[in-house]
């Protein structure tokens, strides 16, 4: 899968979505109404990614998210249980997170496949795997794969989930996308491999034997503790670590940001992105920037 575009959009938690609407107008003249924050975030990231590019009308869309649309779901529950009324139709429809991938496809004028996928802590990587199998089956020639999530607000939830202090990282809203194609001409780089392992030893063996020619940038998911990072850094010859969490912040599909930012920031480097889910599975992503 060759990378032809990348966007790494994050912002401070948004209360007034009109600000997002205004920002989005810089990238598209698509008329959007009755959209919520999650949909606007999705549109923002994807339109930054393809800005100035002409994409195929059959491009596929894979929207990876951990939580989907929180805001409208909350609104509908409020209407049902606090106002004792029927859900407002558009609020109800927007509770389905695939409405975001629909608006992405509609605004891009593509009629390819449109998938919303999730997998605890590794949603973006699973989205890439779906694109990969579609490329291998020759079902698609172009794809947009993104990770979109609203900011996490809960101190308890965050600390319980990640065993980290709430203020250890800045919590942000995020929407980062890759524009992928089957052809190499003009590509920024490629997604060379993605693999899942049930033990760290197997993951290390695979990473250290991967055929890599350019200098390596190592980067880690939020569930890799500092002590384990040090072990990885010793085992895997690398030039530098890309600590995007400290530099930029966290949202639940932040792996998409790390990868997109890598393509934006580096040249002639290889990113080895090491992620881990709460089941202890490792998902390793190897990206090459030409």
């Amino acid at each position: 899968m060759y990378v032809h575009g990348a966007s790494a959009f994050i912002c401070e938690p948004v209360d007034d979505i009109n600000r997002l609407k205004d920002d989005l107008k810089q990238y598209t003249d698509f008329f959007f109404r009755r959209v919520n924050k999650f949909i606007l975030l999705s549109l923002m990231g994807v339109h930054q990614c393809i800005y100035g590019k002409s994409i195929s009308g059959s491009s596929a869309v894979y929207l990876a998210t951990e939580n989907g649309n929180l805001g409208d779901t909350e609104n509908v529950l409020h209407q049902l249980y606090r106002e004792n009324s029927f859900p407002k139709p558009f609020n109800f429809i927007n509770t389905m997170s695939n409405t975001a991938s629909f608006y992405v496809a509609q605004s891009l004028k593509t009629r390819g496949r449109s998938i919303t996928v999730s997998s605890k802590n590794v949603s973006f990587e699973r989205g890439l795997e779906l694109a990969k199998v579609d490329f291998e089956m020759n079902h698609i020639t172009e794809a947009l794969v993104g990770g979109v999530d609203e900011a996490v607000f809960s101190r308890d939830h965050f600390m319980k989930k990640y065993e980290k202090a709430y203020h250890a990282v800045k919590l942000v809203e995020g929407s980062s996308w890759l524009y992928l194609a089957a052809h190499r001409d003009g590509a920024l780089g490629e997604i060379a491999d993605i693999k899942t392992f049930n033990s760290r030893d197997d993951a290390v063996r695979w990473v250290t034997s991967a055929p890599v020619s350019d200098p390596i940038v190592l980067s880690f998911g939020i569930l890799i503790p500092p002590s384990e990072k040090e072990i990885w850094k010793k085992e895997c010859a690398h030039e530098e670590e890309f600590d995007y969490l400290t530099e930029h912040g966290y949202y639940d599909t932040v792996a998409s940001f790390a990868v997109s930012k890598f393509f934006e920031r580096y040249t002639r480097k290889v990113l080895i992105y090491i992620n881990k889910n709460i089941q202890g599975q490792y998902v390793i992503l190897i990206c090459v920037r030409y």
Partner: protein
Amino acid sequence: MEHVYIRGRGITCSLGSDVEDIIARVKNKECKTVDLPIRIASLSYTRPYYRIPGSDRESLSDLEKYFYQVLFDTVYRAIEDSGLTGKEIENCALFFGSTSIDMPMFEKTYKNLEKNSTKILSYESPGYGKIAGIVAERFNVNGPCYTFTTACTSSANCLLYASSMIKTGQIERAIVIGYDLFNELGFYGFESLKLIEPGAYKPFDKNRIGIIMGEGCGAVVLDKLSKSKHDFRILAGSNACDTFNVTTHNSQGDDIAQVITDALRNCNFSVKDIDAVKAHATGSPVNDVTEYNGMKLAFGDAMPPFNGIKPYIGHTVGACGVIELIIIIESVSRGFFPSTPGFESVDDEIDARPITENLAIREGNFMLNFFGFGGNCTSYIVSNKE
């Protein structure tokens, strides 16, 4: 490329959880709904619903227990039916397709919270991937987990991707689950759209009014190796997004026709190779027109016999991709392709004529179609032909 066999299945729906019994009821055209009261806005009327029989789920703890009991029990039966060993199950990938995911529990929690609580979801959301993770842990499945939320095509898309991954060797086998349990958000949401049929379900019928929702869980085990020579194979399929409108498809049916045509092409089939079609057939006045227009465009004069099977079990939304598959393959295995209960009068606007009597057939290529909110269109083809 590898073949993909359906070697195990489990189902829980309004007709029960025993496959023999469910298919016997389908053969006899048994449809059973319950009337659920509309309890908001001081209204007092009821709407029909296809409910899984016998359950106490009033309290949150009872509901949570019930939610996982239905899920685990269905998956357990699919695994047992597959004949695979614990070791073989260990390296399965797990695909979970649902529209509501854990909404039944979440809305119960929300209901019980203090009235001025805000941003509760942002504070409490365990994430869409939670349930698949719990199933993986319960059955010691160590492969990757994928949760699809593509509305009514959720578990149909799970089947497509699981089979593509087996074909390309990315995974060896998969457990694919479709699950949606009753939730008020969905029930009242569809009622707010005025999409619920107050009487009997009658897809494609001239007098149809809308859908009747249902709850259910279906699970299948897919493998590159068959258990017996009678196992159905998933041949191929296609999916795409009709960007006409977020709730309705282009009524001309072009995108639906394209997905059907792509599914045929991906199997190297012509329209004449399809023995029968299970239509999505929601019973909604607009969607049935759109779907049939798409079928006419794709099949032309070679329209195969087709049915709609939601009158047996309701519209199980994201779960229908797996549940309806099980009903079709188990019916064909017993010698018939099910009829369409409730269809009585032809709608002159489309002239769709689904089969109203069971079609005698034991072997063939069958297309299953699913369409949903968010422009989702999915079509796949299964076969038990040698």
